[in-house]
């Protein structure tokens, strides 16, 4: 049995009793300059997320693509394990269950850190996982395609497409499978502007599924009704 000497520290007010992250722990400007940091706005996380590696960015995009994930927070807590400081890479809620994830180059995480963390988070009803960067990079193409969709939705965040979404949804009830070319007019993108945004919103909500077929998103990408 491992001795659990972990404390969750709120960066502003000392010791914290909660493990409900609202915003990510601030990244020091020194780290921003010295690490390969990526900054990107997402939909399921309010604010500009700072990711400390490319794999973390892709992991966030994959979380965004999963309709069962309701929210996520990069760098959620500031913990003290004995005298060591530790900030996990990501926290997310999947089907009502809470997860904390650490991404490591080969999925190797020292046992003297991993075992106490597992016990600590288990007590808080949170599952602690260590994921290898390689397992995330295997889905790089899907994540990159999703990043494109997310950017479109971020840019169109003030547009109301509710009517178009219902219309599109009804059309998929009649014809459950279509190609992107059938929905978006590639010769005149402006004419199908609302349909394009509505389509991506329905995909993001999990009403429709998109099959990239190991290729960049394009005119032949298949969209179908979600089962």
């Amino acid at each position, binding site marked *: 049995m491992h001795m659990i000497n972990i404390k969750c520290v709120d960066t502003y007010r000392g010791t914290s009793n909660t493990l409900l992250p609202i915003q990510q722990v601030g990244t020091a400007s020194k780290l*921003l300059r010295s*690490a390969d940091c990526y900054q990107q706005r997402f939909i399921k996380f309010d604010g500009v997320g700072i990711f400390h590696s490319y794999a973390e960015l892709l992991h966030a995009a994959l979380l965004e693509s999963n309709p069962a994930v309701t929210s996520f927070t990069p760098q959620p807590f500031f913990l003290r394990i004995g005298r060591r400081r530790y900030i996990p890479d990501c926290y997310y809620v999947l089907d009502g269950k809470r997860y904390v994830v650490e991404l490591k180059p080969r999925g190797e995480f020292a046992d003297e850190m991993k075992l106490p963390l597992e016990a600590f988070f288990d007590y808080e009803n949170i599952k602690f996982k260590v994921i290898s960067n390689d397992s995330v990079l295997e889905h790089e193409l899907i994540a990159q395609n999703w990043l494109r969709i997310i950017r479109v939705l971020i840019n169109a965040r003030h547009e109301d497409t509710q009517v178009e979404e219902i219309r599109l949804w009804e059309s998929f009830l009649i014809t459950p499978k279509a190609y992107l070319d059938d929905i978006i007019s590639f010769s005149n993108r402006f004419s199908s502007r609302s349909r394009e945004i509505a389509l991506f919103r329905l995909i993001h909500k999990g009403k429709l599924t998109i099959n990239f077929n190991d290729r960049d998103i394009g005119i032949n990408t298949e969209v179908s009704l979600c089962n």
Partner: protein
Amino acid sequence: MQLTWKQRLNNEPHLQSFDSWPQIDTDLIPVSKRKLFLRNKRIIAKVLSGSTLKSTAEEYRVSSALITNMLNRCLSGDELSPPPLTKALIPNLRVKQGNRKMQLSDVSNPSGARGSFSYLLEHMPNIKEILDTLIESSLKRERSAQNLTPKYFHKEFLRLLRDANWPSTTYPFDQQHLAYESCRQYLKKRIAELTMPQPRKVREILSRKACTVPYQEIQIDSQTLDVHTSMYIEFKGQMIPLRLSRLTLFLATDVATGCHLAYELCLTKDPTQVDLLNLLQNIHRKWQPLELKTPGLNYEPEACLPSAISDLNRIVSVGMIRLDNALCHMSHLVRNYICDELGATLNFGLPAQPKGRNMVEYAFKRLNEHIHRFPSTTGSNPFDPLRESKKNLTKPPVLTISSLNEILSVLITHHNVIPQEKLGGRTPIDTMKFCLDNQFIPLSYAHFDKRVDPFLRRKKVTVKWLSKENRKPHIHFEGFRYTGDGLHNTELVNCKIVIEYDIRDIRRISAYSCMGDRLGSLSAPKSWQNYPLSISTLRKIKKDTKRLRGLGADPLSGYFEFLLANKNTPLQATELLRVFKEYSSSPSHLKLLSPATSDTKISPTSISLRNKPRYSSRIPSWSPYLIEKNL
């Protein structure tokens, strides 16, 4: 398990066909061995096709044992390792590492030394470990180590054997040179193994796939141009040539197509966030060719920046923007514009790793090849022989700033119409057009509705009214009192309102109530209304004013006088130019005189001043000798 040739053929039946064996180019085999090699090939092919050993031996006039030996050379061996096959047919080629099976050679029973050294290392306890330790410590240059040579390594080997009571009649003591050559070869091999650099475990931190979609990865960088320029100004009827300090160029390059998307020439050596934001805006702003006035300079046909191609290019969504970790890139204003307004990913990359942005760095290299052709170049380094000569340094360069701007415009657009090998012989612009027509490019429709201005900022301030002083209600902003008709409302006194201002000109700002109702515009004091006033200039004025007392009643004029008095310093001259450009939209008694001035807007009032005969008659037509005349 060791297999004979017959067992191998049973286990791997596909080897029955000689065509499936690897082919060896006969030209590569020495002529002396070529004849026997071809004969061996024919014999093995015949046997594998089904002929008996006896008949084949008779046909080729060789013994059956020889054929069996050949088959064993080709096919026998360890079950788990692949057989040597065709290469075993080359005469006298050693195909297997010889393991000594018979006893070591002795004085009474000499049996050759082949494989004996390896046998000793394998079977003598600790001898291999001790010899390896000797070599490693020698390579590490440890304090207790000795500098090994083959001679002393051999002596150490013999000493170890004697210490182990090795019989003095057995190998190596029965050999003429006591296994010196084996020791020398072993030492050489181990040193090579230990000194060869090990392959590094590469940690994957970047993408595994190349970017093929335009605008999905943009690399941006800035560089101080390796050239000095000059400019002419007319002040109180006198033309003054000024040497400028080195300028900075910002460049944005698309990774998928190699197309230059935008550039920004900054009139400073230390660019700020405003310069970077200008560049980011230029990516989506329609590019217009300059009216070229420099003699001999022309745009290539169809040369342009992508923003001039179509409306689609001006609303395309940007994927990832890669920058280095320069201080001006770390600004929150830049981050907010990229992440919030463009919806893009911002990446600063790893420090001191410029190859992470290889495209834009290479673009600067190409550009510098042209820039270094000017006599006023500073070269690549302080010892570059191309540097401007001391004789020329005393005079302002012939190259003017407006000419440099035109040259950069021509060079950067010219790159976009040069066919490139990596694009299959197409030009970057053609590739961009092809991708836009045939690929799904994410668009940012919000940009189509309203251009997001990164220079607009909002702030909450409190409305003040000092009734005892009988003054108008006002707000405090940047040390000024701003007044306006919209503040004449008692309900607003001591309440918060929102002001919106452009950081490039804060003479007039817009005011809104917290509920969003417009309250009209507010004005700075009258003494600051003469010229457009940016926040950065205002702060610089305040800083200088604090240092230098006694400026005139008009703070801007005083600041301008100060800069002019110190015009001989190139840095200050550049600052003068920056301030001039900022003021140039307003009535002024100053104007920039340059033969190729096209980027400087002159207001109607200044045009009327220019039309006055006493000024226009003094402006000579452009000539490179103009500088010398004025010196």
